[in-house]
């Protein structure tokens, strides 16, 4: 059924499940006030980070965005430190200073989520430049949405990395909505992936609900990047099952449309079915994976709850006015 070893596909399923359950738990905790600020769940989009991160190696980099928990988990981030950060606690990735949109882990090459739409795109050029100057064949995956693709930085960054032939794979997660603005109304061309011709680089338009398709497409772009042939643009069509954030009822979307995607294009459900049908895994084994994920996430919640608050005195001392 596939180009990937069964064990790898099972690992991908584990990641899909872990991201889904992490986000569901985060929404639950957000609703009861344990998590404040903004929370942007990537439920419905999990196949993109999982497929993409499967296609890169340990020394490569990723750059994420405001809807970035999935990228971090797919890259192997510590979910305890992630949850503690969502709680604003001292053991969080950022010591409680960043929150949901600013998780980074340099040891894993996660150069950061971002609170500014499009904010990470120009930085990916620099990470790509580093890879080129290091000359070790490393690459950068840059994740952004359809909203960011309409920002000017998209053009500057793609043009610059194309002329410098940098090893960057631009992955546009087109979930069709920038908060409420539908990409059908905001993108002048039908497919963002087609914009690649403006930079004379390869462009791919793929089904972002299928982790294997994402893997394959990103893998091809990564290979090209490692060979020094420059960047690629991949548009992965996807859908966020929730609104922009948990309190957004997403009334700007047709009910029928949401029903179609949640019933037909659920990346977690579909991949489970596929692995079951291919006899890669049994229902019992999936249950075990789910149970294990629940346990790990509950442990993360306990870790986050028990983590101390940031040191207020230290913060005030560091920021004493002139």
């Amino acid at each position, binding site marked *: 059924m596939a180009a990937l070893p069964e064990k790898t596909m099972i690992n991908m399923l584990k990641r899909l499940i872990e991201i889904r359950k992490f986000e569901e738990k985060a929404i639950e905790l957000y609703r009861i006030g344990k998590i404040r600020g903004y929370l942007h769940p990537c439920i419905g989009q999990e196949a993109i980070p999982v497929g993409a991160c499967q296609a890169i190696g340990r020394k490569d*980099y990723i*750059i994420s965005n405001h809807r970035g928990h999935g990228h971090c988990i797919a890259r192997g981030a510590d979910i305890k430190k992630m949850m503690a950060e969502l709680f604003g606690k001292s053991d*969080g*990735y*950022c*010591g*409680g*200073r*960043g929150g949901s949109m*600013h998780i*980074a882990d*340099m040891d894993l090459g996660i*150069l*950061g989520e*971002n*609170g*500014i739409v499009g*904010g990470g*795109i*120009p*930085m*990916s*050029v*620099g*990470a*790509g*430049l*580093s*890879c080129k*100057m*290091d000359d070790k064949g490393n690459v950068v995956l840059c994740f952004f949405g359809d909203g960011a693709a309409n920002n*000017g*930085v998209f053009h*500057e*960054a793609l*043009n*610059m990395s194309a*002329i*410098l032939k940098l090893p960057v794979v631009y992955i546009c997660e087109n979930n069709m909505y920038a908060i409420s603005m539908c990409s059908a109304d905001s993108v002048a061309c039908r497919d963002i992936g087609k914009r690649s011709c403006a930079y004379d680089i390869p462009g791919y338009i793929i089904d972002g609900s299928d982790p294997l398709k994402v893997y394959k497409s990103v893998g091809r772009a990564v290979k090209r990047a490692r060979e020094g042939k420059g960047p690629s643009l991949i548009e992965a069509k996807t859908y966020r099952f929730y609104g922009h954030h948990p309190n957004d009822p997403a009334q700007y979307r047709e009910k029928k449309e949401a029903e179609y995607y949640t019933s037909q294009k659920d990346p977690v459900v579909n991949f489970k079915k596929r692995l079951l049908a291919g006899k890669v895994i049994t229902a019992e084994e999936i249950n075990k994976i789910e149970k294990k994920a629940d346990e790990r996430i509950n442990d993360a919640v306990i870790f986050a709850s028990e983590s101390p608050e940031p040191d207020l005195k230290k913060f005030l001392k560091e*920021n004493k006015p*002139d």
Partner: protein
Amino acid sequence: MREIEYREAIREAITEEMDRDKKVFLIGEDIGVYGGAFKVYKGLLDKYGPGRVINTPISEVAIIGTAIGAALTGYRPIAEIMFIDFTALAMDQIANQAAKIRFMSGGNIDVPLVIRTQGGVGKGLSAQHSQSLESWFYHIPGLKVVMPSTANDAKGLLKTAVRDNSPVIFIEHKMIYPVKGPVAEKEYTIPFGKADIKRKGNDVTVFAYANMVLKSLEAAEELERDGVDCEVIDPRTLVPLDINTIIDSVKKTGRLVVVSEACRRGSIASDISAIVTEKAFGYLKAPVKIVAGLNTPIPYNLALEQVSIPQKADILEAVKTIIKK
């Protein structure tokens, strides 16, 4: 001691740092064969090649973003924004990204980045090429702001900037590029947060930075003939700010004139005035006097341009007024 131009001193700092550390590279517009709009990079493409002197399209956001991304992954870029006015185009990357990455990451991530740019009035370049926008950067926690007034300071401070692990906005002044000054041949650096007393005096403290240091020193010389002894303090770095040297001087003189080319509204000058008034009110013999730019875009016409920013005569008048009180 030998005397060299401000622009040469900057070039020397860059070549010394590039020779010392292979991770230092240059990126910006027209910095290749052209040598930079103010010829600071003359000859550097030949010396270091296009791999370390990266000539870019007119893409300010991408220039700064590229520099940040490289800084995050092991390099020490010096990004040039040709005119400080053009930083407006790159402001997200400067203010929301570079300035905040270390903080947002809980202190885990360094951003060793220098943004070299230049500002100021004096060449008839009008409203979009003459601004003094240092207060934008001064206002954003997470950035260091350097504004050298002499060749010696420019060289020593730029070398420190390259070695610093925080984003540094290094603001040169277009009118100082050809000004010569003594610069030691032996290697040296100048620490951030250490003001330089450019002229010692007892009667009045004049706080000035960038080109206004030069104008203030001219004014001080003239005032000396009238028997007024000015102390001219150049902070050299606005962030971090050496407030103690200013306060100590005010304690001695009891009088403070703050000179700044930028528009007065929301300026460094008004903040210095506020800090000194708050911390050393009891020592002041007269209210702090601010000599700053008008709250206007910089006009093209020479006479209009000149009255838009402080001139020597304005500084003289301010000192004479404050000394009588």
